[in-house]
């Protein structure tokens, strides 16, 4: 029943090839809750915390793409250079759990869990991010939209490690908004990321469907308007169209009806903020 702490990515992927049933763990903030409550009984674990390549991030101004290694914690995204490059990701990161959770929890773990409520995920969807995967003998990159395939389901193969994400920056405004029962320590009831690039609006929703939802109808409607002169009625209509594209359910956190309403309100607000900025 070993725990491995590889110090390189190639070591991690060969370990995973040798031990196909091993569990990967980074911050442990999702995984250990399941272990503590006896929902999982791991026998072999590969910890990804000590792999330098997975802790790296960089902002390539020339290509306009930010790379974030899978083990980078929220605490690194919520302020400083990464926050300046990707303000919506910083806002999303800042809403996660508590300072203790943000110090440990990683973007790779959020992608590994792939909950529709994962706060980084609507940002990755709206910013057209791609996810890098690696096994002992192959590497591939998937657009986020192909990576997340269902609630807590993703296209990662059992022998693959998520190594990081590439996120194109936008030349317009971007922001994230989330509704929950209080400020700290709250899993989202509904969330929206809105980003503007080349004067084109993109919008993605969290917690209101089995996967993160990109609102293609609301996007094409708003992008046929003059977004330099958005008045209140257009912003509200945009919110209504976003609500119509949500596919929420009733669960222990909220009702479908409230969630459908909330995403619309958030989308209206973000559009107003983004176009008045």
């Amino acid at each position: 029943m070993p725990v491995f702490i590889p110090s390189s990515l190639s070591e991690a992927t060969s370990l995973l090839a040798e031990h196909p049933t091993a569990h990967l763990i980074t911050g442990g903030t999702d995984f250990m809750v399941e272990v503590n409550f006896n929902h999982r009984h791991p026998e072999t674990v590969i910890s990804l915390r000590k792999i330098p390549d997975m802790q790296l991030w960089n902002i390539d101004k020339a290509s306009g793409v930010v790379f974030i290694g899978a083990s980078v914690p929220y605490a690194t995204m919520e302020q400083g250079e990464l926050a300046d490059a990707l303000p919506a990701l910083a806002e999303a990161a800042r809403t996660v759990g508590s300072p203790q959770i943000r110090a440990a929890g990683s973007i790779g773990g959020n992608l590994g869990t792939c909950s529709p409520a994962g706060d980084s995920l609507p940002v990755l969807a709206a910013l057209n991010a791609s996810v890098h995967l690696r096994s002992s003998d192959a590497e591939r990159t998937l657009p986020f939209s192909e990576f997340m395939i269902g609630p807590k389901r993703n296209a990662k193969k059992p022998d693959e490690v998520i190594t990081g994400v590439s996120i194109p920056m936008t030349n317009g405004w971007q922001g994230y908004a989330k509704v929950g029962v209080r400020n700290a320590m709250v899993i989202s009831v509904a969330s929206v990321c809105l980003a503007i690039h080349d004067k084109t609006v993109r919008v993605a929703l969290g917690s209101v469907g089995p996967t993160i939802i990109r609102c293609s109808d609301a996007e094409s409607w708003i992008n046929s308007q003059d977004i330099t002169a958005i008045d209140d009625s257009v912003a509200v209509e945009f919110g209504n169209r976003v609500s119509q594209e949500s596919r929420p359910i009733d669960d222990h956190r909220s009702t479908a009806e409230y969630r459908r309403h909330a995403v619309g309100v958030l989308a209206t607000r973000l559009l107003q903020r983004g176009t008045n900025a």
Partner: protein
Amino acid sequence: MSQHEYYSLTVNGEQHPVQDAWIGESLLYVLRERLGLPGSKGACEQGECGSCTVYIDNAAVCSCLVMAATAVGSQIATVEGLNTDGSLTDVQQAFVTEGAVQCGFCTPGLVMAVHHLLDHNDSPNEQEVKEALSGNICRCTGYGRIFAAVESVISVRKSSAS
């Protein structure tokens, strides 16, 4: 590559061997039940209450969510290590003086969170204090006495620095 059925943790600068542990054990469990360091408290074991806060390589995290065997090679600091001579730190003393301790269950985690905040920001405003302590739940005090204790440490440190 390292395999850890028997492993050793560095806690408050000292090596502690851990034997016959199940790999799924949390750091909180190992500290309290195997290493005789019960200062970190366990209440929720799901990262919500902060009573188990420790530092791992200088980051303040919930020890209930750290798989102990993955902390091999990391510097772990617990509330026991804040002052090894048994005296109280200024934060601990302020908690006593300001009446920020009632049942005391949340206190070790809060003391760790407050030291961590003040180590990184010597003059946090009220909002920053509240945000830094938002991962620590206290069911007794209503937080007023806790914020008063933090304020008093900030002002005492400031006046002794000037």
